[in-house]
């Protein structure tokens, strides 16, 4: 029961219901489609970098479960204004936080805010890919890849 309450924290449910930055960003410099062949869900990430490589805005579209939508929504908030290096560092920390075999590195709440609510996903191994999809897709978009699948990551 408590595991479930941990997974579907208020913050996650709120982001799922009223996601931030859902839509097709225009204008944009990068797009990529993240695909989960196991469930058939598709998440598209749209991003705009300024000439210096700073992320001006990120939006997402597509279909997904509560976890993947909430994760995408929170990510779009968290990455705004980051340089390419900062983004890669943050993505790596989040991905490690979600997938580390042993106890995950603690996330600094002040820095990560809502994203820390993803902690409950770790107890549901079948759902971890739902949470990582947005991040993999954003990294792929910025690397100039148009498609990425949960089964290659």
């Amino acid at each position: 029961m408590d595991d479930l309450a941990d997974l579907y924290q208020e913050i996650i449910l709120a982001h799922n219901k009223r996601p931030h930055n859902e839509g097709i960003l225009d204008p944009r410099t990068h797009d990529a489609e993240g695909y989960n062949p196991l469930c058939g869900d598709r998440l598209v990430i749209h991003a705009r970098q300024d000439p210096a490589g700073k992320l001006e805005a990120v939006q997402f579209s597509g279909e997904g479960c509560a976890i993947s939508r909430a994760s995408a929504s929170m990510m779009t908030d968290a990455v705004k204004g980051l340089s390419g290096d900062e983004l890669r560092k943050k993505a790596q920390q989040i991905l490690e936080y979600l997938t580390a075999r042993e106890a995950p590195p603690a996330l600094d709440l002040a820095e990560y805010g809502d994203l820390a609510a993803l902690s409950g996903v770790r107890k549901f191994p079948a759902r971890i890919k739902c949470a990582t999809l947005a991040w993999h897709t954003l990294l792929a978009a910025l690397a100039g890849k148009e498609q990425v699948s949960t089964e290659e990551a």
Partner: protein
Amino acid sequence: MVEAPPIMDVDTVRAQFPILSRSVNGKPLVYLDNAATTQKPQAVIDTVSHFYAHENANIHRGVHYLSMNATDAYDRARATIARALNAEFEQEIIFTRGTTESINLVAHSFGARLQPGDEILITKLEHHANIVPWQILAEERGLTLRWADVTPSGEVDLDSFQSLLSEKTKLAAFNHVSNALGTINPVKEMTRLAKAAGATVLVDGAQGPPHLLVDVRDIGCDFYALSGHKVFGPDGIGVLYGRHELLETMPPYQGGGDMIERVTMEKTTFRGLPERFEAGTPNISGAIGLGAAFDYLQSLGWEEFHAHEQALLKRATERLSEIKGLTIHGTAPEKVAVVSFTMDGIHPHDIGTILDTRGVAIRAGHHCTQPLMTHFGFTGTARASFAFYNTLAEVDQLVEAIQVVHQYFS
């Protein structure tokens, strides 16, 4: 007055399936993922373990006692399955790894005779296992793949099916029962229509024998494919039934030991049926276990079995229909006990995860039927699929678990 069918003693039946008494996530297991795989009765488990403990040897190779004994047991399993499906000859039962391999065998060995411009007719209701082999074959040989439509209730649209048949149709392939929606297809009628057009017919029977008595000669099909693990038998074993006149004209599927008559450096001649299609050491314990599964099924009274499953379907359909915001997909009048559903604004995976914490195992996703899901305009459904060992109380547990979904997502 019509006599009511005898009532199945579900408790006694459940006691024969050891896994059904375990718990999951601290709750008694409610196993409603039978379309993915079924649980195994003690009789099957014992047969397989007895084989390894007392009878293990390779078949067809030895002059020694154990080998001859294992060969006998393997052949007896074939005979049991031939009788269960009402095949004319035992040699018409080819052991494979499962439905997927059975279909691929036909695509390879029957497909070898198809010519550019020939057509294969399937339906939008198919599992990927009955789509992808034909797409690959069509690509290789320049064939056209045609898709019969489905109706809003999830049945094959027979007018569409019939209108796509022509003298170009060399093969029609369709499932007996839809794994995604539970629809029982009128396979006898579809076979008749396809044969009238001159086509060869393959029935994907993965979901047939778990719920229905199958008579391949009554259906009239040329091929019938099934998987052991879906009929309460082991995994890694399955069957391709093929009409012997047709099998005899088909080239081998794989080359190797056991399927040859004589090998010289210049040329090899092949054995007859069924060995020609069973290269290499087969899944011997699996075949024997599958024979035990069919024996077990036959020990259950068919009428009670059928009536019980239909009662489960009725109760599940009624109770789920009462839930606000829940839509059942697949409302054909002829169905097995499978209920596929979606809930407004709630993703099937979230439903699956929440049900799992209540011990209720269902499947969430596209069920390997993406063209069907796309046709209906969603990426997936939640699916509760029942077997004869499920109880009416478990339907209620499913419904209670769905109430928890509402607690989180309302």
